[in-house]
């Protein structure tokens, strides 16, 4: 059959051409990236972030490009911080493919200052020393290296509150006024009691809270020492407040208060719009996330109240410039501008990420948010930020908390005995640190 043989040969040849073409294309894109920079003083700054920093949403890049006509900013974004971090680590180890500006989560900043200070620019070189007074003291101190290097500048902090659905509360016959709720759930026991009342008359299939993992995370955020003590020793297994947060989460699971949705899972995302839960622990950056997931239809249904059991902090971030960045000086200028009080205030108004610059905290004190029923978010989160403890940060904070919330998921989703889950958490942490 000569015709089929010819056809087969044609296919092979086509394949070879396509392969060669794609190889050439790959080479081409590799060179064009470097060629576009530098020509005629034009600079393309790359910014690589995780989650939502809100810069694009607040229009800050466009504004910066207008102020600096020779600068173009390109942002890339990974939703999940864990994915972002491992990609960043791989690129740091290889020394290539790094952006000019990289975002760092607060749970990782200890790893940057203690393990990889030599991979990031010491921003003192560009005069960052003079910016110290801009920031809340703890925020600044956490990004300082062993020899006083300034390795990153703070963006937001994560003062904690509770977000709740006023419509679901009303249907279940609970008060919807945030001041009254704050009184009713001044303690975590009060919060869980209210949850049991809600469950008795819950509308539809809705639950009281999204997951017990998030309950644990918000409670542990109220503690000064969580996984490490101030000397850097690992204490989480015997840390009483950690066990208390664990126990409260187990109790919430036992009483069926949770919608059993792991945070950051696709199911969890869908549940915002579906109204599967009535309350969600709410660090300031969660406001923007709720708006994004619940969309326009959620407007006015949500509200924000102060957190049970006092103030706390969950999350927050930094911007750093890797040593291997191409345009370090320009990157530093962009970072100082983005972390300046005026810009931090703009991000808060647009997205809810709470400022770490002291002047910005004062500036946003009066902010209310129509999406959240006009809640005085500036005051609620401002008070929380002032009262929150200064946390001890450890190298493996993020990994350890991941293992613990995993174990709590086993309790709530698989009905695993809490003691066994605790053992699993211990094994998981040992394996992580191994």
């Amino acid at each position: 059959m000569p015709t089929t043989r010819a056809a087969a040969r044609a296919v092979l040849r086509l394949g070879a051409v396509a392969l060669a073409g794609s190889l050439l294309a790959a080479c081409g894109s590799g060179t064009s990236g470097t060629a576009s920079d530098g020509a005629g003083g034009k600079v393309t700054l790359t910014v690589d972030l995780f989650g939502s920093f809100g810069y694009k949403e607040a229009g800050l890049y466009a504004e910066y490009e207008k102020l600096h006509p020779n600068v173009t900013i390109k942002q890339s974004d990974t939703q999940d911080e864990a994915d972002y971090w491992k990609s960043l680590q791989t690129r740091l180890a290889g020394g290539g493919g790094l952006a000019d500006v990289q975002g760092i989560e607060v749970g990782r900043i200890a790893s940057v200052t203690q393990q990889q200070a030599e991979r990031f620019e010491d921003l003192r070189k560009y005069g960052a020393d003079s910016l110290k007074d801009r920031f809340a003291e703890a925020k600044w101190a956490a990004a300082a290296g062993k020899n006083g290097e300034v390795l990153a500048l703070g963006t937001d902090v994560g003062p904690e509150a509770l977000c709740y659905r006023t419509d679901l509360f009303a249907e279940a016959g609970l008060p919807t006024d945030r001041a009254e709720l704050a009184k009713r759930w001044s303690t975590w026991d009060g919060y869980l009691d209210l949850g049991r009342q809600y469950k008795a008359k819950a509308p539809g299939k809705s639950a009281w809270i999204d997951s017990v993992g998030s309950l644990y995370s918000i409670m542990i955020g109220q503690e000064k020492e969580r996984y490490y003590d101030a000397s850097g020793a690992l204490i989480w297994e015997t840390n009483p407040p950690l066990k208390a947060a664990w126990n409260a989460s187990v109790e919430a699971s036992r009483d069926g208060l949770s919608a059993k949705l792991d945070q950051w899972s696709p199911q969890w995302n869908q549940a915002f719009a579906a109204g599967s839960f009535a309350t969600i622990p709410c660090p300031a950056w969660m406001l923007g996330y709720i708006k994004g997931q619940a969309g326009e239809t959620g407007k006015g249904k949500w509200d924000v109240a102060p957190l049970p059991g006092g103030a706390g902090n969950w999350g927050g971030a930094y911007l750093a410039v890797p040593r291997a960045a191409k345009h370090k000086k320009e990157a530093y200028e962009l970072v100082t501008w983005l972390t300046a009080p005026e810009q931090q205030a703009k991000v808060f108004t647009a997205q809810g990420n709470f400022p770490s610059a002291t002047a910005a905290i004062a500036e946003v004190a009066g902010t209310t948010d129509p999406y959240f029923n006009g809640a005085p978010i500036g005051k609620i989160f401002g008070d929380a930020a002032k009262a929150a403890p200064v946390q001890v940060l450890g190298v493996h904070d993020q990994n350890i908390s991941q293992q613990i919330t995993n174990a709590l998921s086993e309790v709530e989703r698989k009905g695993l005995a809490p003691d066994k889950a605790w053992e699993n958490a211990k094994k998981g942490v040992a394996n992580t640190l191994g």
Partner: protein
Amino acid sequence: MSLAAPAKAVPAPRPPAVRRLWRALSPYAYVAPFFSLFAAFGLFPLVYTAYVSLHRVELQDPGTMEWRGLGNYTALLGDEFFWTALRNTFTIGLLSTVPQLVMALGLAHLLNHRLRGRTFLRTAMLLPYATSVAAATLVFAQLFGRDFGLVNYALGLAGVGPVDWQSDTLASQIAVSTIVVWRWTGYNALIYLAGMQSIPSELYEAAEMDGASRLRQFFHVTLPGLRPTILFTVVVSTIGATQLFGEPLLFEGSMSGGISHQYQTLGLYLYEQGWGFFHLGRAAAIAWVMFLLILVLVGANALVARRRSRKEAGR
């Protein structure tokens, strides 16, 4: 190729010694591109991984290697998560390979008949194989959603309670296997079909004359004729199942393969150790264990096949 070379018109005839040398060496020159690429991207990584697996290496500081000897391997022996991953790899491998090959065989048998639109059907079968793992897995993850998934909706219509396709061990493994089965069944069916078409039709005619039914023909003519093809697909699927990675990783987007590691495969555990926890030495050790495991499995397959065919020959 070397035979064709002298036939070509050469402007100035080369001296015979050079020509002889060229004739002796040219085959190596022709295969050199493949083998130099293989050496750079196949052999070197293999050997270097073995070297890394004998050290303690952290991704954050890959320049520092601390000699551990076989420490990484002995640690694996006592590592509960490793055994879980090994068991999962095995059960998911069974859950995906067996239905996939049985269904492929049935489909190939059907497509071997004269059907209207046969070419279309054959092409359509290959479509899942052409779909990217990521796209397919993301769609399946939606279908298998616990609260809003289509599968649970359909089960609900049938009166079966919602299944937690993510956290339940068996259910999650079935869900992951489904993605594999969906992607690979058509591919295997086409290979079987090709094998079936190489079975001489006289055998069927003879069988028919002896009064064998269609079913008996399938079992006594088609299956024996397909044995080498089946062996090939079993080997390829075994290797694929041992290396399974993309589907379990993207199913929930978790490196740990679910909250209790319930569908974490060896490939995923390797990734978690290397790129989640940054322990490159341990990851390299897992990689080598996987490599050896595949060698053993393929060797066992070949042994079984050879014994079978010797038995046949002796009959």
